[in-house]
């Protein structure tokens, strides 16, 4: 049941990314190009996603536990440190270079093109490298 729930939510999330245009790197780069020919569309994606999630979270967190697990597993780290900001800046550089972030590229890699496969392999290599260091 839990496995199915993750699979189903993955599909819903993928549909959301496709509907919103996040799987089109050119559109993503147009959104990031605020000093050029700025395309504000993806700001509406972010806005709608945050509003929906905020509303959903408020309702759910009144519960004592989620449906399929005994307790909530929410992030507990609160530090705003160099590691957080350096990591976020590195992520932003990669995102801004080609227009892919993790969710959209894992959706777009289903087209099995050399570009998306290369990006995904390198991304997993990055996960692995940091995992080694920990």
């Amino acid at each position: 049941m839990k496995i199915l729930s993750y699979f189903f939510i993955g599909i819903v999330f993928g549909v959301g990314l496709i509907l919103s245009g996040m799987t089109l790197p050119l559109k993503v780069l147009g959104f990031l190009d605020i000093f050029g020919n700025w395309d504000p569309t993806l700001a509406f994606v972010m806005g709608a996603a945050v509003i929906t999630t905020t509303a959903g979270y408020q309702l759910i967190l009144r519960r004592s536990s989620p449906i399929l697990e005994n307790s909530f597993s929410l992030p507990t780290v609160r530090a705003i440190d160099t590691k957080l900001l350096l990591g976020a800046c590195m992520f932003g550089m990669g995102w801004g270079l080609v227009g892919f972030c993790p969710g959209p590229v894992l959706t777009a890699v289903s087209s099995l093109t050399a570009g998306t496969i290369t990006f995904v392999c390198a991304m997993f290599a990055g996960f692995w490298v940091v995992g080694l260091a920990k």
Partner: protein
Amino acid sequence: MDILQYSDAILGGATIGLAATLLLLLNGRVLGISGIAANIISGQSYSRKYSISFVCGLFLAGWTAFRLIPGALADSPVTDLKILALAGLLVGIGTRLGNGCTSGHGVCGLSRFSKRSLFATIAFMASAIATVYLTQHIWELGQL
């Protein structure tokens, strides 16, 4: 401004929010893709099979759209595989050091009013905007 022009964006964003809401409701977790994907290799956060299952769902959504709807997916305008590899590596390392990406910090973190996620989101947005500015308008690599 014509709001209908943005209806797909709003519907898509709401669907992303629905997915995030469902994951908290059913499994009690925030929806962070970089964390889910990295857990496939580390298996540190929870059982690998859940992360694999989620990514298979993403892949299936993409694959189905790719078959049925022309133009639903696209490659990056950057076609140089060396740059794609560099970008992938930066995204992989950066999201692990910063513990999150667009979904985890940008959507779920902001929705939990997390100050840490707010700072991360500002940092990666600023960095991405600066990168696009440099590559497009200063160095004029010209993919756009």
